[in-house]
């Protein structure tokens, strides 16, 4: 059927189903299973209230379990097995990993990811902090923040197109339409350069796209953090004789350090997942490959589920320290 109809039907079924499920299950629990009357009224109510949270949680837990928890284990299993022609799979131990570790493209991806992990969160956080501080004291600060934040609304693919235009190369006898080449020639370059093929600059040029997007995110959060600093500590520092730079580095930044860490780690997670930008701009060629793209390549071009899953597990591994840190902090907060 026409997809639009399908969509509307899904919405109706989804919403109606949800509400219906919650309503009827609660009714069932309260009226039929544990009715609040008779001899055991009190005990029934208590029992109903003990079960009720699980009713509320059931759909979410099912979805989460199926779509996020189960895949972790299944991917692990797939990474340890090989598809057999004719269907099914057989356990092959670490063979997939061995194969993966022997591919130079894999190590190229790891090196690049490491580079991305160092450069992008650092630059985004620093630029975000600068933008937050600059726009804080200025009357048109909100407009400035809007404009710097705007790239976050753009898809990675859209950003890829935008920057492909910036990096565009035309033959030397034609006018350059890419800003980078135009500037390069203006400042004395001889010939336009095909930037995206230049190793190692191309990886950095790709990173700039992500920095462009994530700076707005860092800025918004750090701006709120800066606003939360008690004004009097800043005034005390001024009275103590600190100039604006000293106030910033010695008084403001230390007080928002925990937020800076949160921003840094969140951007780190985004970096590990980055796929669209590399996929759209270079597809991993000219030594720009990253793990997420490598994985996609293995899965859907080479149809190698074994190695693909192994690379997915590597991504998971890289992300786990942050996962552990976040969970640890969440539990600490709840104590």
């Amino acid at each position, binding site marked *: 059927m026409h997809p639009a109809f399908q969509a509307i039907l899904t919405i109706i079924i989804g919403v109606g189903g949800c509400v219906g499920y919650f309503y009827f299950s609660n009714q069932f629990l309260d009226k039929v299973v544990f009715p609040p009357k008779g001899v055991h009224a009190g005990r029934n109510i208590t029992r109903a209230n003990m079960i009720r949270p699980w009713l509320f949680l059931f759909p979410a837990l099912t979805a989460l379990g199926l779509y996020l928890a*189960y895949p972790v284990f299944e991917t692990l299993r797939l990474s340890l097995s090989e598809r057999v022609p004719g269907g099914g799979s057989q356990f092959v131990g670490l063979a997939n990993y061995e194969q993966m570790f022997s591919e130079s493209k894999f190590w190229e991806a790891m090196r690049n990811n490491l580079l991305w992990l160092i450069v992008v969160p650092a630059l985004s956080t620093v630029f975000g902090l600068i933008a937050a501080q*600059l726009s804080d004291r200025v009357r048109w600060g909100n407009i400035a923040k809007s404009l710097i934040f705007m790239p976050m609304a753009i898809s990675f693919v859209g950003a890829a*197109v935008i920057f492909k235009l910036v990096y565009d190369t035309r033959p030397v006898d034609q006018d350059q*339409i890419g800003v980078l080449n135009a500037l390069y020639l203006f400042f004395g370059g001889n010939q336009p350069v095909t930037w995206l093929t230049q190793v190692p600059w191309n990886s950095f040029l790709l990173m700039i796209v992500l920095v462009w997007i994530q700076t707005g995110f860092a800025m918004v959060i750090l701006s709120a953090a800066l606003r939360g600093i008690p004004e009097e500590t800043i005034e005390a520092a001024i009275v103590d004789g600190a100039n604006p730079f000293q106030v910033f580095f010695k008084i403001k930044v230390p007080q928002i350090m925990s937020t800076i860490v949160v921003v840094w780690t969140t951007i780190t997670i985004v970096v590990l997942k980055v796929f669209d930008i590399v996929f759209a701009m270079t597809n991993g060629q000219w030594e720009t490959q990253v793990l997420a793209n490598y994985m996609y390549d293995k899965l859907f071009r080479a149809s190698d589920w074994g190695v693909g899953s192994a690379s997915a597990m590597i991504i998971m591994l890289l992300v786990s320290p942050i996962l552990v840190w*976040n969970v640890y902090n969440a539990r600490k907060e709840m104590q």
Partner: protein
Amino acid sequence: MSGIAGTKSSLTWAVHLSLVAMVLLWLFPTVGLFVSSFRTTDQISTGGWWKAMSSSEQSTTLRTSSPETQIGKDGVFLIEGNLFDEGSEAEISVWGTSSRSIDDYKAGDTAELKNGATITVAANGDYIMQSTETLTGKRGQRVFVTALTPPEFTLDNYKNVLFDENNREGMAKAFFNTLTVTIPATIIPILVAAFAAYALAWMDFPGRALLIAAVVGLLVVPLQLALIPLLKLHNEIGIGKGYLGAWLAHTGFGLPLAIYLLRNYMVGLPRDIIENAKVDGATDFQIFIKIILPLSFPALASFAIFQFLWTWNDLLVALVFLIDSSGETTVMTKQIVELLGTRGGNWEILATSAFVSIAVPLVVFFAMQKYLVRGLLAGSVK
């Protein structure tokens, strides 16, 4: 700190200028794309988009009207007219009648043609071709002009990309497909998550802390991990690739963030109101529908915008769960990736298509920025 005594105005200026520089730096890539989408292929190839606002010098070949339009007057045969199209404001600097010497004459000069006729071309393109004999030939005389053309913009690219039904690379279909994927994928998670968030926020039961920690953990899990197993699962239970698969996937992937945001917000709701309602005899379900949901509107709106932007801009989930080889189902992000490959040099199409795909998120962004910011801040500022 504007009120502090002794603040140097040079510092204030430095701040303003740095901020302006930063904003311009962040803005110019998008502006480049936007401007390019309004230019024709020719204009794009004659220079960077930053030159689009000023007149550019172009050399073109134009033709006078054919001799059929000649008029006879006092023994002289004339062809009159203007070389340019209606409404053009180009200004000729030099021109010629032969392709080997296109700058023989200046504007206003008169040239002698091989057949004895003369032609005068004015700066604005007006010409008079005169001869004492009848002018022959089927086509008009070729004139090679170098003219300063003022900036021109066109909506043709947009018409082409959006409305041309014959355009297989058009965005109209992809636009509706993207919409079809996005809307259910935004609405369904909200409801499922709201119930779960309420349970985690206001109900007391063993294992609650553990579940909350689990949600926080799942926030970090990269969705790359889930692609293969879920694709396998979808194939096995018969959904295969399609909208349903995409909706379910987006719902599953969006739930941790939804539950996290909503729970954080609900925990901050005043306890008194809820306890008051309980004392008044309301069931948990009623409290949820009548009190919690309406009060949680800001958080719901925040998540809705997040999820909307995320699903609209998504590529990976669409590639894996939605798009099959038939080409019937496609989303705008995929279309653009295709265009980058096949029409990588045709910036007028690429720019326009890209802009069509980012237009809706930009509108949503500017309209609902407040909620987006609030959603980001939830739980991020310690």
